[in-house]
């Protein structure tokens, strides 16, 4: 099955310590997949490996028709294909503090994709409108609330038009009402044909909005399947521990 993302036999080690081992997962276009696990299970490492921010020792990562191989990270000039296909939203948003909201979103289209300013601003405005923060276009990141900053970060990641969107703990700074709104927004984005891989501790969010769940425990993929199955009838003790909110 071809998907937005295919990860096969992925292995990541830090020195002698194995961080990820034999990870196989796929995310199909239009699918929202929750990547779950206790702290230290390897979720962030997996996202960073897919985004080519972290080298991996074995296996492969394929996004659309772009494949990453094990070994040292290639120079950025050879990662253009990946960058245009993968967008990433970081846990702390990492908006560029010296730029306005609009400038944050137009930066990549104008300089990485060389779009004319007018086109970049139009696409940016539409994205911000979709995410409900168009009225904050001239604000600076420090002037935004946590939810607003997150939506701007999503707009920024979507501006280049990626196939796959990676998100690291998008609900960590949001209240329940805003989590629901975010989930609806992400569902709408997925409906446009993008694949979404969302690292989260938020069981309710995963249960309420995601199609599939992948559970990691100590660097190993222990369980995956439809969210309704995994989160209601967990098979693995790590998943049960996660649902109970205790350490395995």
């Amino acid at each position, binding site marked *: 099955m071809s998907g937005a993302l295919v990860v096969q036999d992925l292995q990541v080690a830090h020195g002698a310590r194995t961080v990820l081992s034999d990870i196989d997962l796929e995310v199909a276009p239009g699918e929202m997949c929750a990547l779950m696990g206790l702290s230290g299970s390897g979720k962030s490492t997996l996202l960073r490996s897919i*985004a080519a921010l972290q080298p991996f020792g074995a296996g492969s990562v394929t996004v659309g028709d772009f494949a990453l191989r094990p070994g040292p990270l290639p120079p950025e000039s050879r990662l253009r294909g990946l*960058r245009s296909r993968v967008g*990433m939203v*970081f846990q702390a948003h*990492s908006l560029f503090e010296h730029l306005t909201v609009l400038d944050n979103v137009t930066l990549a289209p104008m300089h990485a994709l060389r779009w004319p300013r007018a086109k970049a601003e139009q696409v940016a405005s539409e994205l911000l409108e979709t995410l409900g923060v168009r009225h904050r276009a001239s604000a600076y990141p420090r002037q935004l609330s946590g939810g607003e900053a997150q939506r701007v970060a999503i707009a920024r990641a979507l501006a280049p038009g990626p196939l796959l969107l990676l998100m690291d703990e998008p609900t960590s700074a949001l209240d329940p009402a805003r989590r629901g709104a975010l989930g609806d927004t992400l569902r709408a984005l997925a409906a446009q044909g993008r694949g979404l891989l969302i690292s989260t501790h938020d069981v309710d969010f995963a249960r309420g909005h995601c199609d599939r769940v992948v559970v990691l425990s100590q660097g190993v993929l222990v369980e995956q399947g439809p969210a309704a199955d995994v989160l209601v009838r967990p098979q693995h003790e790590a998943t049960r521990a996660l649902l109970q909110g205790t350490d395995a």
Partner: protein
Amino acid sequence: MRGDRTAVTRDSRLVGRSSRESRVTNVWRVLLAMVLTACAAPNAARPPFRWGGDAEGGAPFVEADPADPSKVRGFDVEIAGMIARGLGREPRFVQVQWSSIEQSVERGDFEIGMSGVEDRPALRAAHAVTIPYFEFHEVLAVRRADSARFRHLSDLAGRRVGTLGSTTAYQMLLDEAARSRLEPVSYDDDVHPYDDLVGGRVDAVLLDNIIAERAQRRLGAAMLIQAEPAATGHYVGVLASRDGALRDSVNAVLRARMADGSIEKTLRTWNVWSDAQGAYFQRVLAEAGTQGVAPVAAPDAAPDAAPAASLGIARGARSVGAYLPALARAAGVTLALSFLAMALAVSIGVGVASGRVYGPAPARALLTVYVEVMRGTPVLLQLFVIYYGLSGVVRLPAFVAAMLGLGLNYAAYESEIYRAALEAIPRAQLEAARTLGLTERQILRLVRGPQALRLALAPMTNDFVALLKDSSLVSVITVVELTKQTAIYATNVGSWVVPGMLCAAIYLAFSLPLSRFARRLERRWSAV
């Protein structure tokens, strides 16, 4: 028996105790004697006679004795010794920069300044001055090839002529410059003018014959001293204006040493005696009743330096109009030099910082060496190396050398500021930029650099204000900037009060607006 042993024992303890007490008492007695002796010592012998001179001036005036550099020798050294012994005291040398002798003697750093101090009306007006003890000539030195065409100052219209700043010779050049567009070049020492003469940076040097002859011995046939002197001058000892009585005592000693041939013997030893000098001494002794007894307008009985100081302040205040144009020009030099050097420092600093953050290991190592050498050695030394040290390879104009010296030195400090600022940008920002498809160069230009600039602004402003003040060092390579011009002004009027206040006001006028601008920018950036 037991009783006897006890008694013996008791007696032994008593004997032991009394021995110990006796030793302790003796120690206290010795200590007390030492204290009394120390207290009595100053009253028992007269204090040493402190005289100020500049050993950097070199032979035959004052130089470090090659056999024992902790001591000094020279004809000024020997004459100072004669004066001290004539007063029943031992001489003690105090090192002072030649150009600061007058200020230092008024301050009380020493009792008399002697180191080729030139007699002139302004000196007599501000201080107590001895009878002249040596007659010299201001002579023109030129390159041998120019000996026929540059015989007098008037032949040097449009030419550069070097001399020691704050001297009679410098004033002569300024006067000539007003007539003939001759360009005076002021030096802080009397060695480099002749080096630059031979090297082609100046066309002539006007200085004392003793200094010229010393340079001739060093440089040989490359230079020639014109036979006809440009002027005649005299060396004197300078005392604080309040020390008229001491000055009179010194004069008496000097006359006595002139009369008994001691000074002649010294001057012959140092190869500076001539028949003309002998004739001059005769004139001095013949005028013993009238010459040098009291300087014109020097208050003998003033208990403190206030009258001379107030004379200097009044002179300084009156002369503001005369010196303002020169100060304004020098201020322009300071400002231009500071801006250009800072621009150079920022450009090089950005390059060095980028290289140390992004470059390969060999480049990083080389740039680190550059930073450590530049920061670890005095900028004064670097200026000397660039201007004088490299003159055999590339002869840079003084202003360019000054700009390069300050710029290269401050680039090292700037690069550290920028490197720290770059490394302070959170890694997540750089990763976010990478995931958006920006190249490393774009990330530096669009994301990391602008944010690093905000962090670097405050320390950069600090550095610029520091550079503005460090620009005063470039006078050592003949650039007459604001502080040097102020020193010339102050030396000429005999007081630092008015010139110093003017100078400080001008520096503040430069630095305060800059600080204010930087603060406004910081506030604006932090508001967003």
